[in-house]
């Protein structure tokens, strides 16, 4: 792996170049609530010590609402126009638990149908990851096959050496090409520079065995285990919407007027009571415990059955942001201890 050194000043120059070229740059907002477009390069900040932004970076490939097509109609004709997704974008300073999520979602968006919207966006995206020095009671990346220093999903991976200097590893071909293109900003380095910084990162305290979790879920679909969660879960969409890997969506047509409108692909969430409501009035998941059971099974069983991946990067967002602090990490830890 090629390792380089880049100063914060040069990262700002890089950002400036990119903005001038018309590339959209995204990074966590100053209040760390979500990812926003960087307008001025000198406002670039990389904060490995910050907690994961409240809302993940998934919208870079899977926006909260996305036009699929536009339509016009009159008495005799209907005219359709495909929506064309996106310009080039660079995501700056993604934590490993954000960066890894795109590869996980990629599986479902290219399973029985190839989702051109997701794919195009991902193709046009360069991910600059950042080794993470944060962790709290809600993080558990190391229990789902990742770590605060994993490069999975990053094209370029940064490690902070000092406030003004970063090691930069070119992880993918895309990353290598990118470093080549801006080679005047990257100085040659070697892994001895980043090693001590990486080794000093301890990672989250929470540990569970995801195989044991799956073993229990495999055998216990009918269970009372989720009833206490169902007691207090409010059935909102917070957990799914802030999650970097949740990928359910709803298709709706919006008329601007009688003769014009568009078809939208909008985030949806399995914790909403209407999510599984049939037209007949029957609802197979007719209480909140069943809905939460679905959330845990989808992440720690069904997705593994189908795609051999856990549908969770351990970022802890869903739990930190949950209005009633339902903590998925502690729930699956308990499950792991049941077997």
């Amino acid at each position, binding site marked *: 792996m090629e390792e380089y050194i880049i100063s914060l000043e040069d990262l700002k120059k890089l950002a400036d170049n990119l903005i001038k070229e018309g590339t959209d740059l995204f990074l966590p907002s100053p209040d760390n609530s979500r990812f926003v477009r960087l307008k001025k390069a000198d406002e670039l900040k990389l904060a490995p010590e910050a907690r994961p932004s409240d809302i993940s970076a998934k919208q870079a490939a899977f926006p909260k*609402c996305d036009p699929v097509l536009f339509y016009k109609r009159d008495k005799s004709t209907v005219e359709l126009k495909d929506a064309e997704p996106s310009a080039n974008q660079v995501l700056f300073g993604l934590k490993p638990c954000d960066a890894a999520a795109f590869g996980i979602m990629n599986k479902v968006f290219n399973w029985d149908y190839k989702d051109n919207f997701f794919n195009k966006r991902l193709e046009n995206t360069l991910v600059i990851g950042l080794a993470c020095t944060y962790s709290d009671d809600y993080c558990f990346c190391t229990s789902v096959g990742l770590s605060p220093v994993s490069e999975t999903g990053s094209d370029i991976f940064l490690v902070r050496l000092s406030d003004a200097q970063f090691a930069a590893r070119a992880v993918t071909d895309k990353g290598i090409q990118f470093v080549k293109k801006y080679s005047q900003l990257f100085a040659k380095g070697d892994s001895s520079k980043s090693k001590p910084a990486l080794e000093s990162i301890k990672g989250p305290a929470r540990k569970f065995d995801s195989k044991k979790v799956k073993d229990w879920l495999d055998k216990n679909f009918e269970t009372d285990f989720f009833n206490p969660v169902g007691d*207090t879960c409010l059935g*909102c969409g917070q957990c799914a919407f*802030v999650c970097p890997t949740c990928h359910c969506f709803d298709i709706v047509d919006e008329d601007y007027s009688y003769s014009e409108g568009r078809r939208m692909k909008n985030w949806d969430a399995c914790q909403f009571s209407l999510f599984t409501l049939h037209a007949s009035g029957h609802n197979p998941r007719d209480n909140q415990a069943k809905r939460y059971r679905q959330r845990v099974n989808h992440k720690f069983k069904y997705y593994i059955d189908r795609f051999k991946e856990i549908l969770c990067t351990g970022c802890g967002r869903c739990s930190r942001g949950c*209005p009633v*602090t*339902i*903590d998925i990490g502690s729930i699956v830890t308990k499950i792991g201890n049941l077997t």
Partner: protein
Amino acid sequence: MADIISIARGVFENKKADILIGYTKATSEGRTRPVIVRSADEVQNLVLNSSCLNNLATYLTRKENKGKKVAIVAKGCDIKSIVQLIAESQIKRENVYIIGVKCNGVKRSFEGEDSKKIAEKCLNCNVRTPHLADETVDMSDEGLTGKDEKAELIEKLDSMSAEERFAFWEEQFEKCIKCYACRQACPLCYCERCIADKSMPRWVESSPTKRGNFAWNIVRAFHLSGRCIGCNECERVCPAGIPLSLLNRKMVMVAKSEFGYESGMSADAPTLIGTYDLKDKEEFIK
């Protein structure tokens, strides 16, 4: 005075309720979360302190709790929502057993700088001593202090031109992701089928676009006008950080100044929205 655990035990031993909604420890220090307990054997993990931020009254109107006799731990502001629910005929007084909290104020947020400040709603609170309760319990005084920054913002918004105000809300609502956590946490958003979920016809655009977000947030503000009791749960739970209290508090102020009405204070007084008076003012409608 008795602590929350012995009070809860007493509730079950004296058969005052079938279930009790209270607070328990969450994963991290400094947080609590709601819990429902069903017998005296389950009460030992109940807690009560200035991290008890949730308004538990939102659980009273849930399908599974209807028809049950429910004991609930409630701070004064939470009791306001219980009073409002009774006034709006959503629950019956005799079906709720209120363990009122003598309250010295709660934290603004679980973590970070705001966890050292008192919640803004507590600064002008008129119900620190419960105004409707079956028994009361003391909450410790953590000596939290803080400033009402929102009051200044409301004044600032009032002094803006309509265009400036629109631009302010445009920037805020753009952030909404339509997770409906505000609605789900709100004790007074109890409609079985929210207007935002109706699709035949669709009243509120479901997309979290600028138009759809304006429609949603304004509908919610209107539906809570003259009803909102100011617990500020909606704002606290909003993952997008939208200052929803600016809307709700303004509506509360209008209800008070124009109609002399304060929601959540009396279960017997007619509700503002449910009554009509020829003398009702209308000058504020612009």
